């Protein structure tokens, strides 16, 4: 009989809540309170998340974000700035010591990305892992991923692009050189794709979630059982949201 992990479908939420929930699951799992967990979620309103080491003011046009009603949050994971709009975001929380998780960080990215790739395959999209942290199809990025390890626990979260709006993304992010902005936008349009673009039709969030569920089950040879956040996790999440992710101190720390 295959191992059972928990599946959380937390739907759409604000950026601050989303990041707080991922951290709450990480803390709960590290205390042995919950099983390995896979979570699917979306972002309302659309938001920009920046990597742990990025400078908020250097990466993001905060005035533009305010105009567009886009929230900004710093992640606990490294990596780059992401505009979260029409996408499914996944997270996985699992002990570093779990036999399915390679000790080597880069190899563990590859393993977890394998689940996303199998999910994409369910939708008829062939893709491959492009180290360090991307998944590409026909050479174009369809998923970006970021991992942290804390308290002997792995948290990896990542995007699966359902549709992409490069123009809006670039009106929200700062570019190092305004003179080459048009070229940069054209380049990124060539380098990024989405499920919509690949299949030529819109796929619903729930269909992507179903495909990803099967992808994780196949990759890790497990059974995902749908559940909810525990009371402790909800309490942690509320605390992290209020004390960290909503604060200027955290979001502007670099």
């Amino acid at each position, binding site marked *: 009989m295959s191992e059972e992990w928990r599946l959380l479908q937390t739907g759409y939420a604000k950026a601050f809540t989303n990041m707080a929930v991922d951290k709450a699951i990480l803390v709960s799992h590290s205390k042995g309170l919950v099983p390995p967990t896979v979570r699917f979620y979306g972002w309302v309103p659309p938001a920009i998340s920046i990597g742990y080491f*990025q*400078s908020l003011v250097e990466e993001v046009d905060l005035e533009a974000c305010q105009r567009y009603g886009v929230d900004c949050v710093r992640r606990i994971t*490294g990596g*780059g*700035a992401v505009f979260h709009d029409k996408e499914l975001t996944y997270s996985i929380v699992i002990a570093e010591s779990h036999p399915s998780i390679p000790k080597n*960080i880069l190899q563990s990215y590859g393993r977890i990305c394998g689940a996303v790739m199998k999910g994409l395959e369910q939708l008829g999209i062939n893709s491959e892992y492009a180290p360090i942290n991307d998944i590409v199809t026909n050479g174009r990025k369809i998923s970006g991923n970021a991992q942290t*390890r804390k308290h002997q626990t792995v948290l990896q979260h990542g995007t699966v692009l359902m549709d992409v709006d490069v123009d809006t993304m670039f009106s929200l992010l700062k570019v190092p050189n305004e003179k080459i902005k048009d070229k940069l936008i054209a380049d990124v349009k060539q380098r990024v794709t989405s499920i919509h673009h690949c299949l030529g039709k819109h796929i619903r969030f729930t269909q992507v979630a179903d495909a990803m569920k099967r992808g994780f089950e196949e990759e890790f040879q497990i059974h995902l059982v749908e559940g909810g956040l525990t009371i402790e996790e909800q309490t942690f999440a509320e605390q992290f949201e209020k004390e960290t992710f909503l604060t200027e101190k955290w979001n502007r720390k670099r």
Partner: protein
Amino acid sequence: MQSHSVYKVPQGKLLKINLEYDETTHRILHIRITGDFFAYPEEAMEHLEEQLKDTPLDRKELLLQISSLISQYHIEFIGLNAEALTQGILMCVL
């Protein structure tokens, strides 16, 4: 003296350095390391920045100090390394 550099690490990520240094002694007064790289544990970077204060802006000494801090704080970089960090810092003063 304040300076800034942007360095694309070969086969790695984008590293940005904000550096304040003493022009007379050629030593670091304050450094902020940003970018889209990964470092484990993340919080160790703050110690590294703090401990780089007063380090001479000399390739050999910088590399030695950075390598020693990486080992002291058990930092694992992805998309960045000690050589690239040294290079990024030196680009602020070249």
